[in-house]
């Protein structure tokens, strides 16, 4: 294996995608003499540590691990659950406060929202005065509208005139055909 190939497999090795065959090729390469000086670290690694066999965990490894950690209450950090409860209480209090504020703002009325008149007669007189003022101002704003209304009337009058002229044209045509008919009959 040349140096170029060794570098290619080495980069694969660092990515963790090498096959066993490629790894044994690397071990073979680095145990040789033609290793460049810049690959010194890799050479030392493959020469000394690559052969170390990491043992597989025994079958009862996980059950033993759980026996130590899973059931031991002392391993649970008590502070975290306490904080969780603090958060829950704080959130509940915040919910109650916001709920109260919403209900309060729904029910509370500003100071001015109190009847100015207690006597219905006076209230009625004030309502009439206000409506009259509003009405007068509205009237001022719609003063130009009667002219538009008469324009509408003119349009409808024009429509009537149009239909009348249509009828007249039809009658004239009828008369014409009658006249032609009698003339041909007279000739015969």
């Amino acid at each position, binding site marked *: 294996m040349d140096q170029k190939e060794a570098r290619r497999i080495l980069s694969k090795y660092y990515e963790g995608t090498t096959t066993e065959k490629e790894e044994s090729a690397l071990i073979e390469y680095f145990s040789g003499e033609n290793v460049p000086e810049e690959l010194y670290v890799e050479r030392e690694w493959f020469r000394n540590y690559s052969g170390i066999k990491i043992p597989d965990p025994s079958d009862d490894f996980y059950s033993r691990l759980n026996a130590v950690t899973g059931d031991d209450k002392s391993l649970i950090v008590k502070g975290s659950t306490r904080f969780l409860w603090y958060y*829950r209480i704080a*959130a509940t209090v915040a919910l109650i406060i916001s709920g109260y504020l919403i209900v309060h703002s729904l029910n509370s009325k500003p100071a001015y929202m109190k009847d*100015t008149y207690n006597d*219905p007669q006076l209230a*009625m007189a004030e309502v009439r005065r206000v*409506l009259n003022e509003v*009405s007068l*101002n509205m009237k001022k*704003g719609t003063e130009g509208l009667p002219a538009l209304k008469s324009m509408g009337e003119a349009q409808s009058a024009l429509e009537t005139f149009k239909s009348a002229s249509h009828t007249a044209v039809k009658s004239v045509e009828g008369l014409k055909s009658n006249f032609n008919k009698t003339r041909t009959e007279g000739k015969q």
Partner: protein
Amino acid sequence: MKKLLILLIVMTISATIWAQKNPVDEIFEKYSGKDGFTTVYISPKMFSILSGMNTEDKDYQNLMSRLKSIRILSENSDSLRIPTHFGKELLKLLPAAGYEDLMLVKDQNKEVRFMILEVKGRIAELVMVSGGEGSTVVSITGDLDLKTIADMSDKTGIEELKDLDKVDKK
């Protein structure tokens, strides 16, 4: 825990949005009770009494039953005080709150603007803002029929309004 936090945040945001007040309410709350301003309020409860009162005019009675409240805020034209022109302030805020222009009436030294708020295709509020020496805002709420309101001045005699001079406003 996360769900609770999200719920809390959503509630806070929705409450903030919900708490944003109508500009008309804001103006009334800001200026009512202050020196130089007069506020008149006719409540829905009073309108329920007024609609039950015996009058010969059926149109008027019908109108009373459809009105919910009337609020008036007016600035007294006091030469010692600088006018606030709150009417102009209000007119700037109304379009954003969904109010639409109905009409603008310009007189020699007075400008009256009508704006309406529609809810589900019905006119729920009519706001009349008049400017000049002292602004006046009139807000009428209810299920409004503009034609009936516009025709009111034909029916209201000036004689009936004379009693108002005797009334003390709060």
